[in-house]
């Protein structure tokens, strides 16, 4: 029991509590001295949150190394992990594999929670439970959205990038291990703030937080969310710096850009976007917070502000953000198909270049979220053009995938099954996005369930299903054990069926004119069946997640031993043991050719050295 206080997370949490109390107390004191009533929910809570987060970071120990360097102490270059085993995952640890697992577990904990939140809303709309209040419903769906974006999708992908990138490029760790650790630990207060905003009155505005509604909304839940996302955004930006530096500077000899797995290309494009654009959601949220706390008028026309300014700033991030949510999933698909078809990826170079192509295109389409918003009418036309253009590199990827499968030798293992479902759903999502990109049609479909169906198809096809594929594909590398194929296929069936049942009725509801974010609908519209089907789909998805949890636990304990390369993959991570050694590669491999060159005679992806002193001449592929 005493040992529990040596864990960073416990120390950080307690310091955070103390810091919050102190911050709130200081703010109340300042207010009292200035002659105002000591307690006002907004300023006092925000002050408490800010000091609490700083105290939490200090308590965790992330500032320890820099503090000692600043006061002139001799500091070790690389910190040895102070604890061993499971305790490492509750501590500030700089090893990229530990941090990767920390991110992934965080994502997998918040995923069922966020799904359950929305299931409450679905039950309400299907009229299967007594109606909940409008405020509760709006808070639930808004929180569902934000938690999914910032505490499920982004951490899951960041976790996969953290774990895999050094292994995929032949490096021993990330470029900035300490910064890496801080990025992860910043996520927890952000997640707690958004989650507990529900207890503080929630926020009624949808995840898009448009002012003037968000500036006027009374409950402090709104302030908690604004700060929580600001902190989460900071974590993302720091993580992006790390990943970009690692990929650009730490590739093994011979690993040219056009010998990188597509996952790494996708990581490059993704982190380039998060590095540059996250600031805009942080700024827009901060400006709303200042309107609330200090009465400033950025978006208040009566004070000379403009309502639409918020929307431009917000969507300038939030559109590239959705490419952040899917690009890595597309990279995972591109890297898994060759392994299970025993064929090289068709058109590797075009697929590789399509990732930055999608990112570049995705920067200039954001106005398509505002076609009905009241922006200058003629501005809508260029945004329509760019939105449709970005479909081209996306389509290139989809065509390359199925071309890879054609005349291959397909193994229907669980990772590949998830990839197949992902492709179908992603394609459906992309095709339902085309009508939304066309202004006159969007003016009908905007703010209806067609949009909700579209983006859930994109996220299931571009994030959830590929992440499941990734889990089944790389779990053997991470743990040394195989996940159960039987439970994997059961989970696949539940998730796939659930996804279709969830999404297709939403498209139907959308064309019937069902608005988003409403708590009920006229019975005469005959929508109850579609809402019920959507709810059933959601429950199947949730059940699939329960099966995943079960599979993870039993396979970790009793799974079949995996060995170094159970799938016959031709990328660098399969050249080391499962799990990998602490520093990944004792000898850095030399890369000779592209990955995934199955069946191409004479092609070797990489080997461990050629000089006479090194007798361990292992080769990857050939």
């Amino acid at each position, binding site marked *: 029991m005493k040992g529990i206080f040596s864990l960073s997370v416990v120390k950080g949490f307690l310091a955070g509590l103390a810091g919050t109390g102190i911050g709130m107390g200081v703010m109340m004191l300042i207010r009292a001295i200035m002659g105002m009533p000591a307690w006002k929910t907004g300023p006092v809570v925000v002050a408490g949150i800010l000091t609490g987060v700083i105290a939490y970071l200090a308590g965790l120990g992330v500032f320890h190394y820099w503090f000692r360097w600043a006061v002139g102490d001799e500091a070790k270059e690389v910190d040895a992990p102070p604890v061993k085993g499971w305790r490492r995952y509750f501590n500030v640890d700089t090893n990229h594999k530990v941090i990767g697992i920390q991110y992934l577990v965080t994502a997998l904990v918040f995923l069922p929670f966020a799904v359950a939140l929305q299931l409450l809303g679905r039950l309400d709309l299907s009229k299967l439970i007594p109606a909940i209040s*409008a405020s509760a419903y709006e808070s639930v769906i808004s929180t569902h959205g934000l938690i999914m974006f910032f505490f499920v999708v982004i951490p899951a992908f960041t976790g996969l990038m953290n774990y895999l990138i050094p292994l995929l490029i032949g490096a021993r760790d990330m470029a900035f291990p300490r910064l890496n650790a801080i990025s992860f630990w910043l996520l927890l207060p952000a997640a707690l703030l958004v989650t507990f905003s529900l207890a503080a009155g929630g926020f009624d505005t949808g995840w898009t937080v448009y002012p003037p509604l968000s500036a006027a909304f009374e409950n402090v839940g709104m302030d908690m969310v604004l700060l929580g996302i600001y902190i989460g955004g900071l974590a993302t930006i720091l993580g992006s710096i790390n990943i970009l530096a690692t990929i650009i500077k730490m590739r093994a000899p011979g690993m040219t850009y056009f010998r990188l797995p597509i996952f790494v290309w996708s990581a490059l494009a993704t982190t380039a976007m998060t590095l540059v654009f996250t600031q805009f959601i942080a700024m827009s949220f901060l400006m709303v917070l200042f309107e609330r706390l200090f009465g400033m008028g950025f978006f208040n026309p009566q004070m000379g502000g403009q309502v639409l300014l918020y929307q431009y700033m917000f969507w300038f991030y939030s559109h590239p953000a959705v490419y952040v949510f899917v690009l890595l999933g597309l990279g995972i698909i591109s890297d898994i198909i060759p392994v299970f078809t025993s064929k090289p990826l068709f058109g590797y170079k075009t697929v590789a270049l399509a990732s930055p192509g999608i990112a570049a295109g995705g920067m200039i389409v954001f106005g398509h979220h505002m076609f009905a918003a009241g922006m200058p009418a003629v501005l809508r036309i260029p945004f329509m053009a760019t939105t449709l253009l970005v479909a*081209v590199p996306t389509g290139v990827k989809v065509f390359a995938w199925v071309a890879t499968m054609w005349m291959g030798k397909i193994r229907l293992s669980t990772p590949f099954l998830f990839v197949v479902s992902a492709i179908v759903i992603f394609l459906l999502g992309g095709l339902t996005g085309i009508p939304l990109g066309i202004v006159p049609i969007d003016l009908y479909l905007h703010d209806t369930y067609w949009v909700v169906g579209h983006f859930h198809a994109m996220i299931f096809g571009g994030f959830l299903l590929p992440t499941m594929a990734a889990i089944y594909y790389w779990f053997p590398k991470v743990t040394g054990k195989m996940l159960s194929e039987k439970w994997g296929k059961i989970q696949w069936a539940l998730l796939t069926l659930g996804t279709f049942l969830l999404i297709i009725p939403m498209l139907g509801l959308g064309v019937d004119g069902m608005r988003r974010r409403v708590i*009920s609908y006229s019975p005469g519209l005959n929508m109850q069946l579609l809402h019920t089907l959507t709810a059933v789909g959601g429950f199947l998805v949730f059940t699939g997640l329960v099966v995943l949890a079960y599979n993870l636990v039993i396979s970790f304990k009793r799974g079949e031993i995996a060995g170094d390369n159970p799938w016959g993959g031709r990328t660098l991570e399969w050249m080391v043991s499962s799990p990998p050694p602490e520093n990944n590669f004792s000898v850095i491999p030399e890369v000779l050719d592209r990955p995934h060159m199955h069946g191409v005679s004479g092609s070797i992806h990489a080997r461990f050295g050629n000089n006479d002193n090194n007798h361990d001449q292992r080769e990857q592929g050939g």
Partner: protein
Amino acid sequence: MKSRRSPQDWHHILGLCLTIAILSGSLVFLFLHYDVIPYSYSVERGYIDNFLKILLSIAAVVFSIVIGVLGYSLIFFRRKPGDKSEGSPVRGFAPLERAWTIIPLIIVIGLAIYGAVILDKITAPGPPQTEMEVDVLAFRYGWQFTYPQYNVTSYELNVPVNQRILIKLQSKDVVHSFWVKEWGPKQDAVPGITTQVRYTPTKIGQYTVQCSQLCGSGHTYMTAPAIVISTGDFQNWVKQQQIAKSTTTTTTAPSTATINLVAHNIMFDQNTITVSAGTDVTINFNNIDAQVPHNFALYSSGSATTGTATGSIFVGQIITGPSAVVYHFKAPATPGTYFFRCDVHPTMMTGTFVVK
């Protein structure tokens, strides 16, 4: 890359083409003949619906091609048990890669151009005399319609059929959005600016304006009737509104203390009711909100912010609209300021009950 194809490959390619043809043919047929978006009752909806059908047909063909290749491969290109060899070492085929980049590029450019043409058709201003202007004010949680050329204001949107309407939208508080789905496009109402949208309704009937931008807890019920009538009926309606405007109505309580109270769009039509102490009060309560329950209840004190009230004096029966009920109770004997509200919507429907 293989330079010579074996007969087996042609076998597969033929089978694939057949699969794609059947799939896309059936889907395209479905989309062109099925009424995908029902209730198309305006000129603008006509353009939108036709374009959507074209898009769905193109989507059906693309979908069929990809699913065709995918499905066919999953069935016919499986690894046979015991076969340890690898698949065919094809790394790419530049002409195919060029084709599947350039053809979609041409298609999307074509769609963008056509989209601009259709957008122009549904939004371009017509000659001023041919358009009837209706100024719409959006507020939490209702709509107010003003006809500047007739000097008429109403809470119901009445328009003549086959007449192009120019809606000029303003918002009193937060971002709302004006949408009658049978008429097609929607348009946000933004505080500080005036936005515009145009419609030409083609079918007589009763429809609903629905707010389509989350504006708070009353968003779901922020609706108003949108009624399309013949030109003659419309002129009659305008005359009626003008006559009604010229007679004054008062809500101060006459000696018999009878009050007409209306609940509409989650609001009472009066914020203050005044009666003399101890009189017998009759409230003719009219609930216009369809499917929404309301009541009138009187308390010693209460708060809209917290939604609480204490010291109940009279709690009226809750009725679901559209319906009306008559409440009878005795006003408090002690003069003062009391609090009334709808118990179902305690934070949105409140007022002051003054006893003199």
